[in-house]
């Protein structure tokens, strides 16, 4: 029996493009990550375990993944609203607003971090009012979430917006003529149509937020056990020339990220097969 993956198609070049894809991904993703793993093998299992389960490190995992998850969740909600407004309505300055959405992509993250810190610190423009309400943002985990929401905003908007624009107005009119109210039309007709895109946007935002470093370290205050993110821990280990320790933590982060993204992908596949 011979295995045949080749699929006949209009465009030739399956072998060439697959080879390129594997080579490209190998060079850019796999080899650098493999180096990290190799480095870790210089440690004994006990050393490795001690490093990656140190209380300070575990606290940083919780903050990194928790804050990234919450930030992606917040953006799924508000990003959806932004995408909705951009896709559905015409208003003066719409192009400007549309361009504004991409700004967090272009801005150096350090600039974002410094700006957000100035805004939300105890005597900043926004921070002073929040302070009178008893809410502290800068130098707390909440600040981390704010920074992550900022840098991951474009993902949900940009994935959901084209899908919303492609939705036929007639489908909504059909739902209304059948007696559905606005909420029913949204929940039963529009939401199922944009759900895959929303999930993709969430995944991208989540992945981006996990790896974010530049903007967070300014606003977080970096208190060990409280507002210290894992990427910062890795950098500080590197600064102490603890290369093995840094890669050990990095590898754990890598594995958790990979497993989470894989799970979300499976979830997406499942939701897609369920609807079409």
């Amino acid at each position: 029996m011979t295995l045949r993956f080749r699929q006949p198609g209009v465009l030739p070049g399956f072998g060439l493009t697959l080879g390129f894809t594997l080579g490209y991904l190998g060079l850019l993703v796999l080899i650098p990550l493999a180096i990290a793993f190799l480095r870790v093998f210089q440690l004994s299992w006990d050393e490795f375990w001690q490093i990656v389960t140190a209380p300070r490190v575990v606290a940083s995992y919780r903050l990194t993944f928790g804050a990234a998850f919450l930030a992606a969740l917040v953006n799924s909600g508000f990003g959806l609203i932004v995408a909705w407004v951009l896709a559905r309505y015409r208003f003066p300055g719409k192009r400007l607003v549309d361009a504004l959405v991409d700004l967090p992509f272009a801005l150096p993250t350090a600039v974002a971090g410094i700006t957000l810190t100035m805004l939300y610190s105890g005597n900043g423009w926004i921070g002073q009012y929040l302070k009178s309400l008893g809410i502290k943002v800068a130098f707390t985990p909440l600040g981390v979430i704010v920074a992550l929401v900022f840098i991951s905003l474009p993902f949900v908007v940009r994935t959901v917006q084209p899908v919303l624009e492609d939705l036929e107005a007639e489908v909504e009119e059909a739902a209304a003529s059948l007696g559905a109210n606005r909420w029913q039309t949204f929940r039963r007709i529009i939401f199922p149509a944009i759900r895959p895109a929303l999930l993709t946007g969430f995944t991208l935002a989540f992945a981006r937020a996990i790896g974010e470093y530049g903007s967070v370290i300014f606003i977080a205050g970096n208190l060990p056990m409280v507002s210290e993110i894992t990427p910062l821990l890795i950098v500080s280990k590197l600064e102490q020339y603890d290369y093995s320790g840094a890669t050990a933590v990095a590898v754990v982060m890598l594995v958790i990220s990979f497993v989470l993204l894989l799970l979300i992908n499976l979830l997406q596949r499942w939701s897609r097969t369920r609807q079409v």
Partner: protein
Amino acid sequence: MSIDIQGLYKRFGDFVALDNIDLTIPAGQLVALLGPSGCGKTTLLRIIAGLETADRGQVLFDGVDASRRHVRERGVGFVFQHYALFQHMSVFENVAFGLRVRPRAVRPSASQIQAKVKTLLELVQLGWLADRYPHQLSGGQRQRIALARALAVEPQVLLLDEPFGALDTKVRKELRRWLRRLHDELHITSVFVTHDQEEALEVADRIVVMNRGRIEQIGSPEDVYDAPATPFVYQFLGHINLFHSRVHAGWARVGGLRVQVPEYDDTENAPALVYVRPHDIDLLREPEDGDTTLPATVSRVSALGSVVRLELIQSPGGEIAEVEMTREHYAVDPLRAGDMVFVKPRQMRVFLHDDPKIEPLVHWNGDGDGI
């Protein structure tokens, strides 16, 4: 339920889509809104449905003003040209949708919904497709599902926007016969929009011919075809031959042909247009006595299924005229290109040039599939 439309006016920017439309649709009838694209027929249908609002005027359902009622509360079933099925739902769920979104108090039980959807799918003869998804169906099947979905909410009025416009000719013919039978079974007041004259003539009880936001004529299919009220209706329904003519004291003259037009007894030497259907013309080998024929030359003969179409060039002006006759008729004395003939119209209609109803002339042939 009867529908009364009073003084409906609608503008999109500078474009007047509907210009003071008055129309009564009696309960239980199947009415076609017929006209070229941009004539306002779809806008009128959408205003009846409540999907669009008029600038002025009223829509009355059974004498009650429905203009302010939301589409949700109008009790209309709407069928779209491109089906507008819910892609992520099975055929069954599509049809059940209208029942499932009802307020809890009036929502049927699960078993009632099951039974109702099953009945409806059988009505549209697609019971075996209940578990499929819209993208797995053919165009004709999708449109029938869309109709079943609209009927599920037991509408008082069924509105169809070019329901067969996206289908190929064969399926379209099949479906419109089926729609007619369905209407005879259910007797729901129905309005459908079409630009296909053949479709309107075949399916509708009454035809409303529209042009440029106004109604040109309302009548039975025989009325609008045999007795067109305006030159536009004449041109839009079926093919026509157009002759330039002069009318003087009750007589119209086209070249050497003279026809009596008693309605223009008092007209003096006015330019006019004469409309003749291609199948209302006899061709003779010899001229008749009196001024009843026009000489012409056959320039082309083409057999189109059941009819033979001949193109004629008039000797004087060089204008081209079309004549249609049955194959049998043609076989009696087959004419060839180049033959000299004498044209004798059996029936014609004369409109004066200054008649306000005369439009700048455009040849509307619908989709070209003619009559």
